[in-house]
């Protein structure tokens, strides 16, 4: 089957309706879907509204009409000495998410190649191993990671020469530990999804390119990449979402330096005074980048999950 026709099946267009054969029922179901859609979105709409309110308006019985103000946004983004600032947290999150996602892709793409295009022996067992690591709850590993990350000190004495190399790596409270853990957290899912995308590349196409004397690099660039590109994008996006939103590891391992956006949002909750509008404004800023990415790539993600999951 030509690839294009295979891909056509996942255009994101609806198939023939299963529900609602007659016209009245069809309109009714359409309205119902709209209603549920708005209902699902309502909490977020409300949060955005609250972000533009005064604390007095936010901390009273719910009101829809008020005088909008941008004060809360400037309040949460201003720098205060000794307090985690938005700029700093955003920078930390940006680099941690970017580097860990790039690392995931660098590790997962060759792995998916070895699982799908030129499969190694027992590739199924290896794939199972990757997925099974996701079943290991993070609590099974968090303590030693915390200990190891807090301080690694040991000496390496080189044989014969007698040189001693003091290794002293402090990973806790740095961005490095989060980059490493987010990479490990997303790698199994990425391998799993990418393998299925790579399995979509027709074997004949690869053989033909080999007969034409295409180098491995050329084969990857000219044959494989164009076909798997949407899949790569969907996978990377999912990794970005999970890494950007992660809180547990960020707060447990990284409370001082290199704090990320979720930690910043949580820090807006203060013991004294009203903070509802303030935290709403902070939440809007924190969620906006990822929500925007998700909106742009949603069709691709549906297609990605379809092919990535089952094929």
């Amino acid at each position: 089957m030509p690839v294009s026709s295979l891909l056509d099946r996942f255009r994101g267009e609806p198939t023939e309706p299963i529900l609602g054969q007659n016209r009245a029922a069809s309109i009714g179901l359409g309205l119902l879907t709209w209603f549920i859609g708005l209902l699902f979105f309502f909490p977020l709409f409300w949060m955005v509204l609250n972000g533009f309110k005064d604390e007095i308006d936010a901390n009273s019985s719910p009101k829809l009409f008020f005088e909008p103000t941008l004060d809360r946004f400037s309040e949460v983004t201003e720098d205060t000495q000794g307090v985690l600032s938005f700029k700093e947290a955003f920078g930390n999150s940006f680099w941690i998410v970017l580097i860990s996602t790039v690392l995931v892709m660098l590790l997962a793409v060759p792995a998916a190649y070895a699982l799908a295009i030129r499969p190694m022996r027992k590739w199924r067992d290896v794939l199972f191993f990757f997925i099974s690591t996701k079943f290991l709850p993070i609590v099974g590993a968090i303590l030693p990671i915390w200990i190891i990350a807090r301080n690694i000190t040991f000496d390496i004495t080189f044989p014969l020469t007698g040189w001693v190399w003091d290794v002293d790596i402090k990973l806790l409270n740095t961005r490095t530990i989060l980059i490493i853990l987010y990479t490990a957290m997303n790698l199994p899912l990425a391998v799993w999804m990418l393998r299925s995308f790579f399995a979509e590349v027709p074997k004949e196409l690869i053989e033909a390119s080999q007969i034409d004397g295409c180098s491995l690099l050329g084969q990857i660039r000219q044959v494989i990449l164009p076909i798997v590109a949407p899949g790569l994008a969907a996978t990377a996006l999912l990794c970005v979402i999970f890494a950007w939103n992660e809180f547990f590891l960020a707060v447990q391992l990284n409370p001082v330096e290199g704090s990320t956006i979720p930690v910043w949002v949580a820090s807006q909750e203060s013991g004294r005074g009203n903070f509802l509008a303030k935290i709403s404004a902070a939440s809007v800023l924190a969620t906006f980048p990822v929500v925007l990415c998700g909106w742009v790539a949603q069709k691709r993600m549906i297609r990605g999950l379809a092919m990535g999951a089952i094929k």
Partner: protein
Amino acid sequence: MTTIEPAPAPASAPAVDRSEEVRRLQRIDGWKRRLPILPALLFTIVVTQIPFLFTLFYSLTDWRIDKPDPRQFIGFENYSGLVDDKFFRQAAWVSVQMTVMAVLFSLIVGTALALLLDRKFFGQGFVRTLLITPFLVMPVVAGFLWKSQMFNATFGVINWFIELFGAEPIEFATRYPLWSVVVVLVWQWSPFMMLIVLAGLQGQDASVLEAARVDGATSVGIFRQITFPQLRPYLELGTLLGAIYLVQVYDHIEVITGGSPDSKNLPFYIAQRSIGGGNVFGLASAYSIIVVIASIILANIGLRVLSGLLEGDD
């Protein structure tokens, strides 16, 4: 055939060489095939498996991080105390309830949403965008949002709505902590299930549906006999991925209830007893090992499902 004489002995020597050569080439080929996966494999083993071995070791000691005493090897003492720890039992029960309810309800709601969305109507793409959004929202934000702006007894929208009907406002997060967390989890994970089921629906062969309709099949009949069997692997996949993530929920609990006893699952309890200030690292490690063993049992069931998904895919 009799005219061909059996090959003389010396001629067989190169044949042996050739087979060795073949084997050598196969070995090289095998490593060439394996090479691209090694970095990912090594990374995963170092970051996920080695810490686990440390946890196993810690679980056999009486280690507390807040005391300078050297840690002592105490065998299985940590484990034997587990049965009597009623907080552990409670956390385990919360874990089971929370995971099962969150997965089940997200799956049901997600499937319903996917069926509704898989039709042509005005603004279909826009409504889909609205529905996907909760999945993209950071758990910490989702937690705060529901706790302070929806569930809250004085400023919460839900209570405002309830009061319209003359009912007393309810502080949901303290009255129904477990349900409060589950509601937020379902709000976030239904869109994910919806995406997976939607993918399954759109992978259907339109001509088969058309043929069934021409043959006079009813909508219910089509759903039961064509759509549902087609959706089954997608539903299984959704269950599996959902369970993997939902069994480890921490952020929502932290924000919504702060870990009240009725809504504290095992990951939360373990973190609380160790790095969260409890400091009993030896005991907490034993808890972790129990969680891991339970997960492995569940994972085995999950992997069977997976191998069913991969069947016939070579």
